[in-house]
C-alpha cells in the first residue's frame, strides 16, 4: 500500500533502501547525511526484510564493504558527504573496474577540505569527470526533491544492475535536510539467493556450486587485454549515453532564455522562471536529471533558437563547462553561482539573470 509521509531527504533515502529490497547498507557518519544511517538503524530492517546495516570504521571501509557485497550480486549501497566521497575514490574505481552494480549517495557540503556542512554542488566535477583513477564513468542522478531522493534509489539500483555499473545519487545538504511529502511504495521483496544466481550467476561470487568459479577483480597485467576491457567499458558508456539521458524541461518551447540547473538550484530556478514570466520575460528551465550521461543533444538543439543560457549552481562554475561543450552555436552561456554552503536566493538569481539579459541587448 502506498503511504504519504513528511520526511527529510536523508530519511527518504533510508526508507527507499529498505522498501526497494536493498540487501545491505554500509556507511559512516558525516554531516549532513547522518540521518541515512540513523534512520536505517532505527528501522532495524534486518528484523523485517533481512537487510544488513553496518556502521563501518571509515568511508574507505564502507566503499570496500560495498565492493564485497556487490561482488556477491547483492543490492548494496553506501552514502556520505563530500570529504567522505573523496575517501571512496579508490574503491569506486575498483567497483567500476570489476563492473559491479551498486549505489552511492553524496549529500554534498561546501569545500574544499573540511569546508562547511552547508549545502553545495562543489562535487559536480568529481562526480562526472573524476570519481577515481582510470577511464571510467559513473551514472549520476541528481534529485531535486525529497520524493526524488526516494524514487532515485529505486532507479539507481535498476540502472546499476542493468549496466553492472556504480550509480551515484548526487544530492546536497539542503535536499538531504529538508522535509517534503513523499509517496512511499509498498515493500519490494529482496532477491533470494537463487534469484541472484539466476540473474547474476555469470559473474557474482556466491560459492561455485554447480558452475565454474567466479572471480571479482579489476586487475589485468596484460596491457592488450586491459585495452580490450577498456574498449568494452567505453562501449557500455556509449550505450548509456544513447539510452539513459534524462532531463526535465519546463516552458522551453517559447523561451528566449533557458536556465540550466540541477538539484536544489533547479527548484530555485523554477521560482526565478515564475518571477521572470510575471514580468513578461520568456524564461524556460532545463533540469538535467542525469548529470552523467549529460543532456548534450537537447541543449545543442535549444541553443539553435534561444538567446542565452544561464547555468545556476552552488559552485564556482562546473556544470557550465558541460553546457558550453554541448552547445555548438555561439549562443552565450553564463554562470551564476554561490559557494561555501550559501544557497542562491531566487531574488538574487533573478537579478543575475536580468544582468545577463541586459548585457546581451
Amino acid at each position, binding site marked *: 500500500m502506498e503511504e504519504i509521509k513528511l520526511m527529510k531527504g536523508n530519511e527518504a533515502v533510508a526508507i527507499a533502501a529498505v522498501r526497494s529490497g536493498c540487501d545491505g547498507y554500509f556507511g559512516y557518519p558525516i554531516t549532513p547525511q547522518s540521518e541515512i544511517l540513523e534512520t536505517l538503524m532505527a528501522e532495524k530492517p534486518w528484523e523485517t526484510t533481512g537487510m544488513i546495516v*553496518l556502521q563501518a570504521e571509515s568511508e*574507505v571501509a564502507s566503499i570496500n*564493504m560495498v565492493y564485497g557485497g556487490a561482488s*556477491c550480486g547483492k543490492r548494496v549501497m553506501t552514502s556520505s558527504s563530500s570529504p567522505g566521497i573523496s575517501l571512496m575514490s579508490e574503491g569506486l574505481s575498483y567497483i567500476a573496474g570489476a563492473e559491479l552494480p551498486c549505489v552511492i549517495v553524496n549529500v554534498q557540503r561546501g569545500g574544499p577540505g573540511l569546508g562547511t556542512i552547508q549545502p553545495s554542488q562543489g562535487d559536480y566535477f568529481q562526480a562526472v569527470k573524476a570519481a577515481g583513477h582510470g577511464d571510467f564513468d559513473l551514472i549520476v542522478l541528481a534529485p531535486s526533491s525529497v520524493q526524488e531522493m526516494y524514487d532515485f534509489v529505486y532507479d539507481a539500483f535498476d540502472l546499476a544492475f542493468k549496466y553492472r555499473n556504480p550509480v551515484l545519487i548526487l544530492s546536497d545538504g539542503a535536499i538531504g535536510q529538508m522535509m517534503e511529502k513523499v509517496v512511499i511504495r509498498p515493500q519490494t521483496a529482496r532477491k533470494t539467493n537463487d534469484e541472484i544466481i539466476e540473474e547474476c550467476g555469470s559473474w557474482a561470487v556466491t560459492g561455485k556450486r554447480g558452475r565454474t568459479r567466479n572471480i571479482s577483480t579489476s586487475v589485468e597485467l596484460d596491457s592488450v587485454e586491459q585495452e580490450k576491457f577498456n574498449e568494452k567499458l567505453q562501449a557500455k558508456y556509449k550505450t548509456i549515453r544513447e539510452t539513459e539521458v534524462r532531463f526535465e524541461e519546463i516552458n522551453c518551447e517559447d523561451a528566449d532564455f533557458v536556465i540550466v540547473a540541477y538539484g536544489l538550484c533547479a527548484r530555485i530556478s523554477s521560482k526565478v522562471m515564475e518571477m521572470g514570466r510575471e514580468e513578461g520575460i520568456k524564461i524556460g528551465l532545463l533540469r538535467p536529471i542525469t548529470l552523467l550521461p549529460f543532456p548534450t543533444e537537447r541543449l545543442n538543439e535549444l541553443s539553435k533558437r534561444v538567446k542565452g543560457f544561464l547555468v545556476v549552481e552552488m559552485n564556482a562554475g562546473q556544470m557550465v563547462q558541460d553546457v558550453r561543450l554541448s552547445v555548438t552555436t555561439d549562443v552565450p552561456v553564463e554562470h551564476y553561482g554561490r559557494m561555501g554552503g550559501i544557497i542562491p536566493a531566487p531574488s538574487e538569481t533573478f537579478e543575475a539573470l536580468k544582468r545577463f539579459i541586459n548585457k546581451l541587448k
Partner: protein
Amino acid sequence: MAGLKVEIKKENLVYKRTELLTDNTMHYCPGCSHGTINKLVAEVVAELGIEESTIGITPVGCSAFAYNYIDIDWIQAAHGRACAVASAVKRLHPEKMVFTYQGDGDLAAIGTGESIHACNRGENITIIYVNNATYGMTGGQMSPTTLMGMKTTTSPQGRDSSLHGYPFKIADMVAHLDGVSYVTRQSVHTAAATRKAKKALKKAFEKSLANKGVSFIEFVATCSSGWKMSPVASNKWLEDNMLQAYPVGDLKDI
C-alpha cells in the same frame, strides 16, 4: 632406478597435489612460502569439503593472484581492504566460509584499520596473514614488520628504530580484542612446521564455520627475492631471526 619395488598405484599413494589447485603455474618466485601456504589453504578447503561454499578475498601484493591457483570463488580487494570486503560478504552470506589472504604490507600497514576493526567487530571470518617482513611484489621495501637492523631497499642501512619504529606485532594486538577467538602464529619453513601449520589452519576454518568470531592465523614466511637469499638460506634465516621476533604458537584460543 632399477630394483625399486614401489608400485605406482592408488593404494600406495601417500601424497599428491590436491585437485582443488588449478593447473596454472604459480607466479610466485621459486621457493616462495606463498606457494606452500596457498597449497595448505587448498588442501584444508578440500578436506573440509567446502569448495562450493567458500569465498576467498585476495589482497594487493604477491598473493593478489592467489585466485588463479585455488578453484573456489574469489574477490580481489583493494590494497589493505580485504577485511572490509570480507565483513560484507560474510554478513550477506552468513552460511559461507569467508577468508582473507593478506601479506604484511597489506594487512599490517595500509589495511591496519580495516583489519583491526573487522577483528573488533568479531566478524565470523578467517584472516590468513602472511608475514615475510617485506614488500615482495614492489621489490623488497621495508614493511612495518621488517626486523630491527634488516636491510631493505627503503632501509638500506638496516631498520633503525629512531627512523622507522619497531617490528609490528599485529597478531599480539588482535589477540587482545574480544571479537577474536583464535590467534596463532605458524611457519612453513620445515616439513614438520608445515604439517603443524596445516592443522592450525584447519582449526581456524572450523571455528569460522562455527561462527566463533575472527580466526587470525599468521604465517611467518620467507621472501627469498626480497631478502636476496636462496630459498633454503631464507628458511634458515627465518628460523634464526624471524622466529625470534615472531615466535610460533597459539596466542589465543577460546
